[in-house]
């Protein structure tokens, strides 16, 4: 994590100086800010107060400087947001250039946050964009609490869960509600939503609607492959660890992909399966999601439109979810996603799990891993008191608690009990209540 101090852009030309001084340049946006519409909120003051907040006071954070992030930065700068911050841990790859329009070929390898910030400041004189090249988890909660609005254009679910949980915690503890606007796209579809932490439904409330990545049964991969994907999975899941032991597969290394592609092709030839290609191999092992500029434009525009409304009250903000699809003609659906009472982040109630007394702890663990509303991968379990039930790490605790996996629940619990789950996917602990039946 490092905040790079970006030197103020070069000297401004006299034309630009004159432009920045002219009050008429915001003529278009000002029409909306100087006039009340038929659906405008009563609290809307309009005029100078709204303009001052938007153009001088409002501090806004953009999480992600990728496909959505580039669009978001452009829109915010043009709309009049002046104090913009952007954070991204990624560097620029050539496959970004079909949509991440603030980057050029010569920028490949550079920090997305740094390059994007510099570009926007050069193109839109007068705007201040502060970049952070690093992980969102490296900043304390107080950092996030210092913004008026946060927009997330992330492709990572764990990162979204983290920022969501962080903002809900800030809202609950400090009564400081920082609106989170979240966008996401896939192909011709996408969604934008407005989350008022602890007030409206949060990201975690809808976690069960996220489809898990396609998983192929191991027995199909090992014994009855039919699709090219089955051969690719065989190469990456079964063959790679067998051949390379401890060497980790790096899906960004083209030589690693090449090896998988060769192995998968050989297997496909054996079984007379057609269709293994380099691109498919890469797509399967990296779980690549198709992405285009136009969809990012639509979703980012919606996110920034909501930020503009929140900052100025020029129109009521989205309550609270909009889906867009351009796959078949075009279609948008706007609705209120409801709060989940047993949401582990913002709900008051705990998740209930019905378990049979005869289950082993391992069975319970598997059932928990299968739950769509938890989306966990390698859970560790503890009694409500904190005493360990089963820990994945560190090694000593893992060894000490491993024997519990074979024990029946009736041996471990005398009655209904609460269990605390921690997991690398979870930025928080979840307490579930086990009902023995």
């Amino acid at each position, binding site marked *: 994590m490092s905040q790079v101090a970006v030197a103020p852009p070069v000297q401004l030309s006299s034309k630009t100086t004159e432009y920045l001084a002219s009050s008429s340049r915001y003529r278009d946006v000002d029409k*909306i800010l100087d006039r009340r519409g038929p659906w405008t909120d009563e609290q809307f003051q309009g005029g100078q107060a709204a303009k001052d907040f938007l153009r001088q006071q409002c501090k806004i954070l953009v999480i992600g400087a990728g496909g959505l992030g580039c669009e978001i930065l452009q829109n915010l700068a043009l709309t009049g947001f002046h104090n913009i911050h952007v954070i991204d841990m990624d560097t620029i790859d050539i496959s970004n*250039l079909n949509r991440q329009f603030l980057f050029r070929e010569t920028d490949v390898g550079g920090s997305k946050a740094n390059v994007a910030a510099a570009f926007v400041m050069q193109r839109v004189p007068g705007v201040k964009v502060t970049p952070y090249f690093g992980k969102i988890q490296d900043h304390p909660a107080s950092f996030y609490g210092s913004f008026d609005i946060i927009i997330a254009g992330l492709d990572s679910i764990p990162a979204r869960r983290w920022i969501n949980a962080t903002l809900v915690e800030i809202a609950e503890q400090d009564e400081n509600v920082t609106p989170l606007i979240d966008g996401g796209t896939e192909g011709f579809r996408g969604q934008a939503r407005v989350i008022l932490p602890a007030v409206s439904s949060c990201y975690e409330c809808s976690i069960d609607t996220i489809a898990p990545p396609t998983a192929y049964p191991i027995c199909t991969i090992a014994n009855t492959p039919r699709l090219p994907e089955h051969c690719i999975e065989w190469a990456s899941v079964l063959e790679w660890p067998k051949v390379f032991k401890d060497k980790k597969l790096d899906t960004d290394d083209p030589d690693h992909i090449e090896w998988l592609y060769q192995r998968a092709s050989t297997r496909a030839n054996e079984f007379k399966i057609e269709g293994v290609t380099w691109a498919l191999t890469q797509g399967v092992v990296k779980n690549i999601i198709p992405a285009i500029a136009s969809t990012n434009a639509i979703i980012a525009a919606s996110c920034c439109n909501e930020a503009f409304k929140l900052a100025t009250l020029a129109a009521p903000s989205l309550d609270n979810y909009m889906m867009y699809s351009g796959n078949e003609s075009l279609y948008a659906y706007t609705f209120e996603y409801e709060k989940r009472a047993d949401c582990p982040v913002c709900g008051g109630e705990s998740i209930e799990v019905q378990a049979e007394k005869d289950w082993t702890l391992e069975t319970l663990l598997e059932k928990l891993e299968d739950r769509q509303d938890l989306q966990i991968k390698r859970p560790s379990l503890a009694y409500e008191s904190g005493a360990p039930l089963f820990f994945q790490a560190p090694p000593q605790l893992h060894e000490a608690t491993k024997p519990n996996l074979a024990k029946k629940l009736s041996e471990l619990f005398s009655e209904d009990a609460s269990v605390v789950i921690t997991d690398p996917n979870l930025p928080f602990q979840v307490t579930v209540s086990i009902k023995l039946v």
Partner: protein
Amino acid sequence: MTHRTPPASPSNHRPVKMARMSDGMDLTDATTGMEAIPSYRPDAKARRYDRQLRLWASAGQRSLEAARVLLIGCDATGCQALKNLVLPGIAHFTILSPRSVEAQDVATNFFLHPDTIGRNIAEEAVKLLKELNPAVEGSAVVKDPAQLLQSDPDFFSAYTLIIASNVEPQLEMDLAEILWKASEKVGGPDVPLICIRNSGFIGRIEVQLREHCVSDTHPEQTHTLRVDQPFPELEKAARSLDFDSMDSMEHSHIPWVVILARAVSIWREQHGGQLPNSDDDAERAAFKDMIKSWRHKADEENFDEALRSSYQGFTKSELFEDEAVVTVSENSKNLHILLHALKQYTSQAPHLPPISPTLPDMHSSTTSYVALQNLYRAQFNSDFARFKQIVAETLGRIGLPADAIPADEIESFARNSGGVQVIKGRALKESKEMRGLVAEVYTNVDEQFVDEEKPIHLGLHLALLAAERFHLVTGRWPGSPEADDLAEENRQVEEMALSLLQSVVPGAEGGPETSEAIAEVVRGGFSTLPTTAAFLGGIVAQEAIKLVTNQYMPLDNTVIIDLVKSSMEKYKF
């Protein structure tokens, strides 16, 4: 497509240009005992476009790279649309405008810099848009569009697609009419026109095209297996299954397609050639019972799949129907010739397009699955041979060489021919006259307005139409003056809206929804919110890509967008 094994040594088994791409040690070369397989590692271009090729594939990309797009109205919305087309790699774009850059243009348009104030807007925007993709050509034409339309109408029909962003209503209508007339002739240019209008939070996109063919709609369910009328080889394979001689492993791995084809074949034999009646619960149950009776165990996944898909056994595959392409000439587009050939193809029994050669995944052993796939592929090859023959004859008849349509274009059309869709568009003039749909809704106000959303979007449409009328009369947009009396502007627009409405529905009232819609549109004063511009620019680009690639169903023909409520509604006016 099979991978041939070249006899080459491992060191030169890869094409030269690929070898240059590899950086660092090659794991393949370090691994002994492996069969040499050509790499086809993606080149720089394939890597740049990787995330979009996964949507529209190389066929779509080829079409995109041949597309020439014209933008009239060099505003923020139009430039945003162009940005989203330059990035994926169209061949060329032209911006047509004689105007100079003003401060307000710079403030809303990301592709203008304050230093360029006073210079020609088309030239400046072209410069900054071209930076987005070195493979794309861009040019500025510094002329007045209205005059050019008079002096050189052919200029416009040389483009693949035209975007008119917030141009004056009169120019928009004249342009639409010229394009519509040009497309009247068989084989004449049929250039789709996308018109944009935005005011504050409100936007509208209209598409004019005479006819459009979608060769791949990318449906959720991609495979038309035609189990309701199995082709002879499939039927033979299905009837020759000997359940009793199979062990449990084999029996539980018969692909469901074969099971269902067998059920259909036997049912037809017993019912005078008829399929089960899908409206008859008893027949549907009897059909399923037949399948169930073949089970050896209750937990056979393949039979579960067959039962889940049993509706495909009583849903008749549809005939291909289209009157669009009765005649073709040497000027016809490739797609029209292919559609014409398809129509001839389906005039013969079984009156269905060539079968799709691909199968979805299903519970099966590898050998049974591959065998079934080979059956479908063989059938496709035979269907395709007949189709190719008809295409060749058609080309000969209209005086074109046999290779006038590339072989791979004919094949990819044939592979997707089960899902081909043809759209008949309407002239912009006609859709703006608001007969049909609008008349219907406003005539039955009480019943239709129960659905809360509709009147708002229709009201916004009416408000935009009235504002265009206002512009035709006054030469300016309502809500545009700096020091204004908005109430008076609203009143005038409302009067025009009412007279428009009453010209199609005598005695109709606009209602409060229409007044609100007008107030919001006039509030915007036809100014550009950068977010609205980006939103519309994204949609316009999506639609342009769909039209250019002939993939995915495009909008036909109007969408009204309300970014106050973040909602939209589409209509075929």
